[in-house]
């Protein structure tokens, strides 16, 4: 038998061999350890990649800590509104240019789809602010249609809010004997309400898409929704819907969560909380853009043309305002707003081209910092209009004239 090369029987060499073996074993062990470490790192990196941002509890304790720019989502035309789904996986964007659609993107900014009120043309609609509720439904205020349209998470039309105490399905049910939840109904301010009883072979969503004056659909009498012109849309932690109204009078309307169960809302009888009137004084608004709430239950309303944020208590009694004038923390043209879980209020200031952040955890409001400046580069704004936050510390900002959504992060 031929001995394998390099083998020896010499005792000294054997000792050497033993040493070598030990060394090799050590090396092997080290390698295994390294591999394990690598696996660990990989696994962590994978987890990190799945969740690119630190979780909220890993945020620095100091609230006075500005976020940084990550990337931008393009493929939107002059966006004015932005919202994130409750799980943070979907970004909804309302555009005023082009076809005036609501577009859906994933967290990385890949397009997932788009939608618009069924049976409307681009010249008949103008989606502005939007928000998602805890069920993932999307609520979109349309300034030309004068209503809030409600869609499921994929943009399938569900119902609409035609007034503080009137839903579209409720209106249809009043007009039609034997209204069924599956029946097709669509609203177009310029044309009227179309209704068609469900027929078994037709899908509701499909029907809504193609509905119109054509065969089978009935045109119901005009709904009188004068003086209803919703603009701002937000939800608070309790699931209440916070709307601002700018047609006729200017006020905030809070729809209780009980009214917002499964659609269609055939019995839409909320007892809304309504506060504010049009004007420049205390307790008044000129074009209130959005209403948000802090952990104390106080309302913060961006009072657009008055250049300030007004603060109201739980019951809708006026407390005070801030941001008027010049100097640190002063606001020019406040638009979209958001409060994060650490009671920081974010206000998009369209004219000073910044997002301004305030500490609203105490009784008084303290200015923390502002970020952004005018420009066309990454991290610069050109008439920003809205902001939404998710739970991973991401901020989405509608950068209107740059036709993009900027993604920032802590």
């Amino acid at each position: 038998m031929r001995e394998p090369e390099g083998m020896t029987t010499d005792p000294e060499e054997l000792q050497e061999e033993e040493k070598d073996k030990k060394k090799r074993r050590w090396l092997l062990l080290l390698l295994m350890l390294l591999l394990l470490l690598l696996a660990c790192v990989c696994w962590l990196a994978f987890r990190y990649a799945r969740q690119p941002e630190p979780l909220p509890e890993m945020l620095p304790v100091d609230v006075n800590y500005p976020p940084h720019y990550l990337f931008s989502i393009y493929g939107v035309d002059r966006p004015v509104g932005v919202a994130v789904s409750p799980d943070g996986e979907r970004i909804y964007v309302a555009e005023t240019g082009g076809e005036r659609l609501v577009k859906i993107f994933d967290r990385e900014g890949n397009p997932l789809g788009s939608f618009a009120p069924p049976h409307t043309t681009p010249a008949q609609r103008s989606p502005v602010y939007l928000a998602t509720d805890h069920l993932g439904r999307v609520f979109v205020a349309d300034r030309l249609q004068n209503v809030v349209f409600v869609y499921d998470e994929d943009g399938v039309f569900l119902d609409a809010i035609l007034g503080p105490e009137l839903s579209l399905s409720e209106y249809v049910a009043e007009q039609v004997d034997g209204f069924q939840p599956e029946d097709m109904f669509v609203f177009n301010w310029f044309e009227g309400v179309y209704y068609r009883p469900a027929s078994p072979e037709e899908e509701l969503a499909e029907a809504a898409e193609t509905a119109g004056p054509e065969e089978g659909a009935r045109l119901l009498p005009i709904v009188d929704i004068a003086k209803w012109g919703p603009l701002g849309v937000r939800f608070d932690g309790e699931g209440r819907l916070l709307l601002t109204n700018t047609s006729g009078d200017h006020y905030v309307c809070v729809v209780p969560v009980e009214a917002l169960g499964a659609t269609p809302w055939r019995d839409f009888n909320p007892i809304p909380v309504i506060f504010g009137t049009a004007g420049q004084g205390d307790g008044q608004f000129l074009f209130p853009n959005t209403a948000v709430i802090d952990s104390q239950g106080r309302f913060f309303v961006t009072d657009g043309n008055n250049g300030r944020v007004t603060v109201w208590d739980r019951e809708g009694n006026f407390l005070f305002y801030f941001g008027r004038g010049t100097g640190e923390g002063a606001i020019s043209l406040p638009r979209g707003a958001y409060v994060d879980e650490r009671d920081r209020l974010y206000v998009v200031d369209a004219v000073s081209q910044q997002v301004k952040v305030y500490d609203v955890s105490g009784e008084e409001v303290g200015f923390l910092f502002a970020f952004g400046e005018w420009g066309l580069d990454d991290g610069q704004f050109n008439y920003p209009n809205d902001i939404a936050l998710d739970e991973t510390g991401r901020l989405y900002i509608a950068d209107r004239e740059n036709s993009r959504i900027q993604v920032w992060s802590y």
Partner: protein
Amino acid sequence: MKKVFFVASIVLIAALLTAGLASANGGPHGGYTATTDACAGCHRAHTATGPNLLTASSTYDLCISCHGSTGSGANTNVDDGYYLSTRDDSGGDWNHGAANTPDNAPLLGGGFVNYKGAAVTSSHVPSGTVAAAWGNGVARGATANLADGNLTCASCHDPHGSNNYRIINETVNGTAVSVTQVDEGAAKDYNTEQWADSSISQFCAACHGAYHVTRAGSGTDNSDDGLGNTDYGGDISTFAHRVDMSYSYGGNSNPETVGVISGTTTYTLPLAASGTNNLVVCTTCHLPHGTSATMSGVAASNPGPAGDSALLRLDNRGVCEVCHQK
């Protein structure tokens, strides 16, 4: 240096503007008092430097932040040509401003993107990209550049307020302009019927002088504008129509509007007051912002802007037929 100038201008302008200009429906234009900080709504509230002291490059972008289709700062949505709120007024028709109109009544100025629910087919271009105006000190059908650069909203309107109807600039393209408002009440709001008097023609003429033909009769007499100004040449019936004359029809010798009924639709054109008379003016046939009227055949081959709708209120030569009924 710039800052010093700015502060000085603020004081000066604020002082000038306190001289009793009424602001319209909560608009930020004019009506300033020495103590208000209304400037911040359009100019940066803090001391950061910005181009031209304004907050961004384009005037149009600023105006559209409020006057755009989102209506998030004004009811007059000039993109779509709609008034976005309900108006309370009895009587009147939208051709002359407010009436008892629901939301989405058409604006008097027309629209820059859409008008009456359809995409515009021609408009004044407000984005600061065009300077050449038809008949601007040159013959009809020819163009010359405006005195102060490209056309923007601020070429026609003064965002700080003015004594003119709809805050039209008091100096347009280097020419002094005065456009008086005619209405039911003094208030500048959208709940009363209000419109411009016949001086609106002079406003258009500040940039399109050659089209301001006021002399009676046709043919050879139309070489000048009838005011003894430049000899522009050209034939009135192809290039320009006489304006600033009264129009009478039927038993009504002094109508506020003229109209024809065709089928089930009534087509009306507004006239503009001058004293107690109502006159034919540029805005009788044209919308100042933009139109969605469509042109075909001969109507699409006008000698000026190649084949577009030339801001006309009605399809084809519909405007002619309203007065010259055959």
